[in-house]
């Protein structure tokens, strides 16, 4: 029994008939496939063609790559690239800073070195005594118990200075000259070894024209703040006024012109002492200055204007008694202004602000990045579920209404009650409710995109939900998600500042930008200490602005609409 058709023809006829009639049509008899013929057929012919993910996704033959275009667009924005470079440099620097030479530890309290003093003489012959250990190597000589090393730096024009020392109260003529030795380790510095029984020092320039010697107290009263500044430099144009009575110190006073002829009272340091009025005489040699002889035991000076309505407010700053002695300063190196040792100065307990600054930047960035990452992850996942699964919408919306109204402060206080105040506590407290706004945002986006035609098509084709979410929804949102992420980092840094401000921040031994700004804020009324506010405020602003601009630029670049 044979058919006029070959096997191949039989197959195609059967297929055609089946398609036309819609059923598995049988031809009956010899024209249908016989059992033997079926066994011969390749089973591969009847397997489904399979689904090639790559081929299915291919939308054409362009070489468009989303991320490459994003990067290219980003690179076009010069400003953002510069900011990104700044940001990365800052980030890298915060980590290599502790490894640099000559760094202090952030929490170390610095004390003055007790067996050396550093004396700087400036162009106005003003002498300042510091006590920081500055020498790069060891001390050039080991001072004996009753000796002190004095490092001296004078203006270059002075040449090698003449240095002489004398006991307190002695005449200058009896001074013992010392030979200053240039210090090998510290360029521009000389050192001398001073016996402790002769602690008063005179420094003269090489040609002998300029002298700095503490003999009189010079007091200036500032008009605006009525603050009193005093110095103990020999500044007079003429000779110092005639020696006063025994046991007195000459004091020069300058007050604002509007004050008229000032009056001055001197009191002992005992509390409640009204003091005695001291006669002020205009100094002929220095215009605008008055001089007086103040008893050595009455050093608390109050300066009043002629009518007595205003007075110099800083009582007792003038230690007129014996301003000549050079003593090592003891205690914390507190509130030192920025100089070549402490690059950003020190705070009130002598911690190096430069080190604290970078440690604080590290902490704040760490908090910012972790909080942003956690919030982004949780927010995206929940937002997608919330938007895509209709049944969850009501529950999540109610949850949102409630959580959104619970003040963060309550959560923070509870968190800090359960855990100790620390970095994890802050992170947990910021994350507990932080994800909710991002989730809400994502949800709104999902609802907009969810029922677009391409998603309906995907659903009709039977694409699994997970795939629709990951491949259809997420890429649409990359740009906004990136934007929110980038803004979340400065946001978290800002909330850390806020927490420190309301007193719920990190403990003081974990430096953070919030701590530092807050500390600086408490000192802002003292103009000379404002560097402690300015420096962290500027760094904080630079960091947040960088993140903000880079985030914005990246979001613009990541938006496919701009990839033309």
């Amino acid at each position, binding site marked *: 029994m044979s058919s006029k058709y070959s096997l191949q023809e039989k197959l195609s006829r059967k297929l055609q008939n089946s398609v036309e009639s819609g059923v598995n049509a049988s031809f009956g008899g010899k024209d249908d496939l016989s059992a033997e013929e079926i066994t011969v057929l390749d089973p591969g012919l009847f397997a489904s063609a399979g689904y090639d993910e790559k081929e299915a996704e291919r939308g054409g033959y362009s070489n468009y790559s989303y991320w490459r275009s994003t990067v290219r667009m980003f690179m076009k924005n010069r400003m953002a690239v510069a900011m990104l470079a700044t940001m990365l440099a800052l980030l890298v620097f915060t980590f290599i800073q502790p490894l640099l030479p000559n760094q202090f530890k952030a929490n170390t309290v610095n004390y003055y070195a007790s067996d050396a003093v550093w004396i700087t003489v400036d162009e106005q012959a003003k002498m300042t005594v510091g006590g920081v250990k500055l020498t790069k190597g060891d001390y050039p000589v080991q001072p004996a118990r009753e000796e002190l090393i004095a490092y001296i730096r004078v203006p270059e024009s002075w040449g090698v200075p003449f240095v002489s020392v004398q006991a307190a109260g002695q005449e200058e003529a009896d001074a013992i000259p010392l030979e200053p030795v240039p210090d090998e380790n510290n360029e521009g510095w000389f050192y001398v070894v001073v016996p402790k029984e002769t602690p008063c020092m005179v420094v003269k320039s090489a040609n002998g024209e300029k002298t700095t010697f503490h003999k009189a107290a010079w007091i200036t009263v500032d008009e605006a703040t009525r603050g009193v500044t005093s110095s103990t430099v020999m500044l007079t144009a003429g000779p110092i006024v005639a020696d006063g009575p025994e046991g007195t110190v000459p004091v020069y006073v300058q007050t604002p012109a509007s004050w008229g002829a000032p009056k001055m009272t001197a009191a002992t340091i005992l509390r409640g002492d009204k003091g005695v009025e001291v006669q002020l005489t205009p100094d002929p040699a220095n215009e605008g200055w008055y001089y007086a002889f103040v008893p050595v035991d009455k050093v608390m000076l109050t300066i009043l204007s002629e009518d007595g309505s205003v007075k110099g407010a800083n009582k007792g700053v003038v230690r007129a008694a014996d301003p000549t002695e050079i003593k090592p300063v003891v205690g914390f190196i507190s509130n030192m202004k920025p100089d070549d040792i402490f690059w950003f100065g020190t705070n009130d307990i002598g911690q190096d602000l430069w080190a604290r600054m970078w440690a604080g930047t590290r902490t704040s960035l760490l908090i910012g990045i972790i909080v942003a990452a956690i919030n982004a992850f949780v927010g995206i996942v929940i937002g997608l579920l919330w938007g895509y699964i209709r049944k969850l919408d009501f529950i999540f919306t109610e949850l949102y*209404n*409630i959580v959104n*109204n*619970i*003040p963060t402060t309550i959560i923070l206080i509870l968190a800090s009650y359960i855990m100790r105040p620390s970095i994890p506590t802050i992170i947990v407290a910021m994350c507990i409710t932080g994800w909710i706004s991002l989730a809400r945002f994502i949800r709104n986006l999902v609802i907009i995109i969810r029922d677009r035609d391409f998603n309906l098509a995907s659903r009709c084709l039977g694409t699994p939900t997970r795939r629709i979410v990951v491949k259809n929804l997420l890429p649409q949102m990359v740009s906004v998600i990136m934007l929110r992420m980038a803004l979340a980092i400065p946001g978290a840094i800002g909330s850390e*500042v806020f927490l420190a*401000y309301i007193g719920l921040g990190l403990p003081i031994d974990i430096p953070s930008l919030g701590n530092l700004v807050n500390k600086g*804020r408490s000192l802002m009324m003292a103009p000379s200490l404002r560097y402690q506010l300015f420096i962290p405020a500027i760094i*904080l602003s630079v960091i947040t602005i960088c993140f903000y601009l880079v985030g914005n630029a990246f979001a613009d670049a990541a938006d496919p609409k701009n990839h033309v």
Partner: protein
Amino acid sequence: MLKYSLMRLARSVLTLVILITVIFILLRQMPVEGYFTNFEKMSPTAIDVGLRKLGLKDPLHIQIGRYFLKLLQGDFGVSFRYRVNYPIAQLIWPKMLVSMKFGLTSMVLSLPLGMALGVLMVRGKGRLADKLGNAYIVFIEAVPNAVYFIFIQLYGSSWFDLSILYKAEEWTSMILPVISLALPSISGYAMWLRRYMVDEMNKDYIKLARAKGVPSSAIWFRHVFRNSVVPMVNLIPGSLLLTISGSIYVESLYSVPGMGGLLVDVIKRQDNYMVLALIVIFSSLSILGLLLGDLLMGVVDPRISFAKKEGSR
């Protein structure tokens, strides 16, 4: 519209009830020693008596029930730590007025200024005005406001010889706090208005109007501006009502006796009824603000209607 509003209000009441319950329970987790000033020196009996007096020894559901009952009668209870046994309503009312005075002044200042800045930036898009405005917005948005508030206080007071703290009898002492409050909201209004206007400008009907020869000023004000203002209108009642809550930074910097730091303060002192009262006030205001905003949007833009099913627009 009425039905819609009532429905929303009913749902908000439900939310509010759940919220209060949650916060009530959270507050009960606070440590006991926070309720007394001299906890270390007290004997266990004294503590017990003290807690009983505050009603903290009863089962939780009775405590909550009692609170709701009082709340329904319009009674916020008395403060027991912030100011002992002083009625909360009387305590909060004067503070609210102070905060509102500052908030409203700064809003009156910032709304027109912010809108003007936004319009100016769009009109000169890509030019100097836009760039300067953008720099301002970036600065305000990115830098934590604690930082620039401090500088405003520091230099504002010394350069212009203004009082560094708020004094009720001197109106000039309000200038700096109001400026501090206004700066961020000006930037917010300008930013959003600019964004909405740019979106609106790129729409087809504007191109048509231009092609038709409608004068530029008419396009700007009759079409672009009016359409862009609609989403902004949504925010106005909310921010108007929330001026009551004050600003923590500004009020503490200038020591304004307002609502600003009150919430943080009473939470720290564990004055539970004060906390609850403040939360009830703030959250009802924010819910009401949202509702009013939506309704106002319907008034301003006739295309928006809430009578139909939600989402049909």
